[in-house]
């Protein structure tokens, strides 16, 4: 990778971190209103549950019923992880073993397929079409394009410029677009676990 690409990527990363920092500041500037009622269960166990078993496909009726959509989402996000790991490793690409290259390429490839599949579903399915904003479509398209380029670049290095450009664009888009749900996910699941754990609904704690 050339120095200029490295600078572009690091600049994009800095913008992304700065933007997410803005979201963090915005969120923390708002009041925190914890529940004051006597707890019936364990908020801590609720939070642990929310991030572990509570994410399992069998934990929710919605994911049991829509297992394919759930798996598509999981594959897409695993692909995104592979894509970003790949982007970071690009800085050292000459020394990466071929097995790792293939794992990243395959991960990004199936992630891209899941992403494009999700986009088609969003366009075809009437409920999804109705609730989608242009941002939803463009964000999924951007990330799917990045994963496609990542898969191609890890297979055929001449795709690298496209891969890096889309990687930088995705990084910049994270705090600006709906992609930032990856950041708010942690807040939302934490509050979910706290709320239902405290009330003795989740976390395997008997109600008082």
């Amino acid at each position, binding site marked *: 990778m050339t120095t200029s690409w490295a600078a572009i990527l690091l600049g994009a990363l800095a913008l992304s971190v700065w933007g997410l920092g803005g*979201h963090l500041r*915005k*969120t*923390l500037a*708002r*009041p*925190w*209103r914890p*529940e*004051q*009622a*006597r707890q*019936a*269960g364990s908020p801590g166990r609720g939070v642990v549950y*929310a991030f572990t078993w*509570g*994410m399992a496909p069998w934990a*929710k*009726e*919605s*994911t049991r*019923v*829509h297992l394919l*959509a*759930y798996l598509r*989402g999981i594959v897409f996000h695993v692909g995104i992880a592979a894509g970003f790991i790949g982007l970071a490793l690009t800085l050292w690409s000459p020394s990466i073993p071929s097995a790792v290259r293939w794992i990243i390429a395959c991960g990004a490839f199936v992630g891209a397929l899941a992403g494009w599949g999700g986009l088609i579903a969003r366009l075809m*399915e*009437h*409920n*999804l*079409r*109705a*609730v*989608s*904003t*242009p*941002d*939803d479509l*463009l964000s999924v398209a951007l990330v799917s394009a990045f994963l496609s380029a990542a898969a191609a670049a890890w297979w055929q290095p001449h795709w690298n410029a496209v891969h890096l450009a889309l990687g930088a664009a995705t990084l910049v888009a994270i705090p*600006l*677009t*709906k992609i*930032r*749900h990856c950041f*708010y*996910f942690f*807040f*939302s*699941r934490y*509050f*979910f*676990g706290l*709320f*239902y754990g405290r*009330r*003795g*609904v989740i976390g395997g704690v*008997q*109600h008082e």
Partner: protein
Amino acid sequence: MSEAVNTETINTALGALERALDRRLIAALEVCARCGICADSCHVYASDPKPAHVPAARAEQVRAVYRRHHDPLGRLFPWLVGAKDLTEVDLDALTETAFASCTLCRRCTINCPFGVDTALIMRAARSMLTAAGKAPEMLVMLADAAIARGENADEFREIYREIVAGLERDAQERLGDPTLRIPLDQEGADILYVGLSGAHTILPAAIIFHEAKASWTLSMFEASNYGLFLGDPTKAKAIARRIVDEALRLGVKEVVLTECGHAYTALRWEAPNWFGGEFPFKIRSIVEVLADYVREGRLDLDPSANTEPVTYHDSCNLARNGGLVDAPRIVLRAAVQNFVEMNPHGKENFCCGGGGGLVAVPEWFETRMRAGRRKAEQIRAAAAPVVATSCENCNLQLTDLNGYYDLGVKVMGLMELVVNALLAAKQRQALPLEEAA
């Protein structure tokens, strides 16, 4: 002039949204990826599957306004992120969505991969609408009436005392025990029991407390809290204050709420937030107390009084949002001969469609009957002639659904079933030994 009024209304609504925006609400507004997986989890969507009934679509009405003011792209390119300026037409549409189409049951929340709290968003919407004068008049009127009753409690006290004396005679007659008392204003009692308007929440409780030899006193006030439905913490607090002050004045150890889902949410979970901390007394539902009495053997129950199969409808406020899943089942297994579960049940149970204040607004009868179709299907599938529930609003809604969908069931409260079993046990005791056997 009209434009100025509109601007003021909109600014008032926006101001209410700003006040509601805390960290939890920000997370709920920001995190939704609009994957649509919440759709089937909503009883309104399950009964009438159209895009507007997808929980994510409901919340988008608030998100669009939020993005216009709090999202950089929403300010610059609103069309790109689905942001929009709030108009009075939007407020009218939001009234229908937040008050009539969402019962705040949180079934979508537990089914969302992110745990998006759509009920929290809808409550913020209700706050906006109440502040802007767009809330249903009936709910506002009921909340104001409850506050007025609290402010003029002394005027009602003697009349109420007479009513309670009449109820006491009825309860004595039903139990066949002239020593039964319905204490009012009893200082130092262990329990302050809070019923609802109507004898049906007081009579069975009086019989149960008498049989369990509990130290109790009846509240002057009713448990329901319409301020909660309005998303108006000031009114909700004023309504709750009546009971809190009464409990403090009488020095009770705990407040026990009748079979009422939203009253439980209001006083057990929300009121400490309004008052800024825990109370020096416990707050429990009568369902929890009944389960304790059964576990401790304080009630002699004869389940042969309730021979027909009984299924149980979990109130969203008690089960999904209050964790009371086991307690009613402990009671039912002791009080009825044949208990059958509805599918799904417990925290996954479908809302009956009457929650969130819908039952109180007559013009929404058709809306809530349509929304209850999924519940009617569940009841039919359970094939039990008796449907028990521990929530007054659910009881009213299920009774209406029974007629609307011709279900041919009997809807009963948990306390009613327990009293049947209690009376049967007493009759059995009164019989000669060989006949009782």
